[in-house]
């Protein structure tokens, strides 16, 4: 949420006609620019973004820093490709444009798309970098297009000269099937030094490619585990709600069957353990049955039948866990434990859940669940504490 004024320097040199980025380098660059503008404006509504071109007849400012996204998108139309990229002049003009920004409180940032070759010396670039640093301007460089060792070295030196506290970055995007914008989404250029951008990145990824690198919601759980978890949980809840609503009528008979099956607590426990284990293994095939179980459990709870409740809940919990939401499942188990506090089945429940190894083994057997996932571990740890606390409370009550 940093208040920032950004100038984006676009390369519209002849080198942008090349098609090694789809559809052309120039188009890929334009998409990336649009994405960046959106991200910046979304992370803070007072952010402003401006655009200038570095090649063509000369450096030309297309739009001065503004928060109006429409203006920026409009100016990207009808841009002509030609000439050679003038990096030094481009950066200097960008710096000047930022200097005359309206809101002096904004931090200054320049984003350069360096596609064509760089004809300036390393020394010159380093001096420019120092000047930028002196005036507290941050610089991000997207190195794409021409692959040239000298060019990479020069750009790295430039960013190193400007870099102050890791506020400047350089990103190398090799040619290939990945779109330029998608690659940029995961870089610090978008995530804004680790905060604020990941929400937009998730939305953009979902809209554009739908799960960029195979993560469920386009959000890397490593980058933002809480967001990934929250998204996952809300999806699960929504799904569960929808399916529960859909199957409300059809399940009384099966519910009766479940009730009959429970003779004693222990027997039921072991039975359900067995059933839930097998259920978890066949979870993909038995998704319908799992949803039935969920519904029955809900009905049973409303009927206030303690034994069945705990049993079915356990069953449901396992199936929910099987439905790829182990965190929600464990949370449900915890809450069920709370509810079952005054019931006799509690001790057994507690013991069973307290059997850490058992739980982890069940979780391990569930496809898609990694017991080493830190969130799972945390919940396991809290679960461990829960049964212990319960025992303490019980002793106090007695």
């Amino acid at each position, binding site marked *: 949420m940093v208040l920032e004024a950004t100038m984006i320097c676009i390369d519209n040199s002849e080198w942008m006609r090349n098609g090694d980025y789809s559809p052309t380098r120039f188009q890929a660059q334009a998409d990336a620019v649009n994405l960046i503008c959106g991200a910046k404006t979304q992370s803070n509504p007072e952010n402003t973004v401006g655009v200038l071109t570095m090649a063509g007849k000369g450096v030309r400012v297309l739009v001065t820093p503004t928060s109006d996204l429409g203006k920026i998108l409009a100016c990207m139309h009808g841009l002509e490709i030609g000439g050679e990229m003038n990096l030094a002049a481009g950066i200097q003009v960008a710096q000047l444009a930022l200097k005359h920004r309206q809101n*002096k409180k904004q931090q200054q940032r320049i984003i350069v798309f360096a596609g064509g070759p760089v004809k300036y010396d390393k020394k010159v670039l380093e001096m420019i970098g120092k000047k930028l640093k*002196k*005036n507290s301007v941050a610089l991000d460089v997207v190195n794409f297009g021409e692959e040239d060792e000298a060019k990479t070295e020069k750009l790295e030196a430039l960013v190193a000269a400007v870099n*102050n506290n890791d506020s400047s970055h350089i990103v190398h995007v090799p040619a290939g099937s990945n779109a330029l914008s998608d690659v940029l989404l995961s870089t610090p250029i978008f995530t804004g030094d680790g905060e604020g951008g990941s929400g937009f990145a998730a939305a953009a990824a979902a809209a554009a490619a739908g799960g960029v690198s195979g993560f469920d919601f386009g959000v890397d759980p490593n980058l933002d585990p809480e967001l990934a978890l929250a998204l996952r949980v809300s999806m699960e809840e929504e799904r569960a709600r929808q399916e529960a609503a859909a199957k409300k009528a059809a399940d009384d008979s099966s519910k009766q069957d479940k009730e009959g099956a429970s003779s004693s607590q222990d027997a039921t426990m072991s039975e359900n353990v067995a059933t839930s284990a097998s259920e978890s293994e066949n979870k993909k095939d038995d998704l319908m049955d799992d949803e039935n179980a969920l519904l029955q459990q809900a009905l049973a709870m409303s009927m206030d039948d303690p034994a069945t409740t705990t049993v079915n809940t356990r069953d449901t919990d396992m199936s929910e866990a099987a439905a790829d939401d182990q965190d929600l499942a464990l949370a449900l188990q915890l809450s069920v434990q709370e509810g079952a506090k005054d019931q006799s089945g509690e001790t057994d429940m507690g013991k069973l859940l307290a059997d850490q190894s058992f739980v982890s083994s069940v979780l391990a057997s569930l496809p898609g669940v990694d017991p080493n996932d830190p969130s799972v571990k945390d919940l396991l740890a809290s679960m461990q504490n829960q049964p212990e606390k319960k025992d303490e409370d019980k002793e106090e009550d007695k």
Partner: protein
Amino acid sequence: VDLLDFVDWTGVECLNQNTAHPLPNALKQGYREDEGLNLESDADEQLLMYIPFTQVIKLHSIVIKGPEEEVDLQSVHQAQAACNTLLYKFNMSISPQTVKLYTNKEHMGFSNVSDFPPSDTLTLSPENLQGKPVVLKYVKFQNVRSLTIFIEDNQSGSDITKVQKIILQGTTVETTDMKGLKKIEEH
């Protein structure tokens, strides 16, 4: 009178400062007394500080203190034989030398320091750097809303400049401090 109370901290800026050693180290009450905390410059030896005030002030004098530094023990021993105490000596070379003051100019950059003649130019002598105030041309500082301090170079021309302490001394023009207005007690 120390004008520290009248500094508008929300607008204070410093260009080319090393973020680990920022301006508050030299300006703020607690920090500037601490000898370990200095204001240090980053990319080169110049520093540009912008200090706005909450009300109009008249600036009388300014103290700019250079950093103190421990002397290498060996050289101490060379000068005096068996002495274990550390002597603090002011490190002359990296203290500021030429300082230009500009009044009421907002958001100056390094590029426009030469566009506008300074209200005053100071050349700091060793005594100044040890804490002796530099008396300013009072007539030029009668109506100051904001002060820009531009440190152009340092004593030896090295790459970084360090400043230990900056004290601004002066008086306020007769404006009422709204916070100081209190309701007259009814008898």
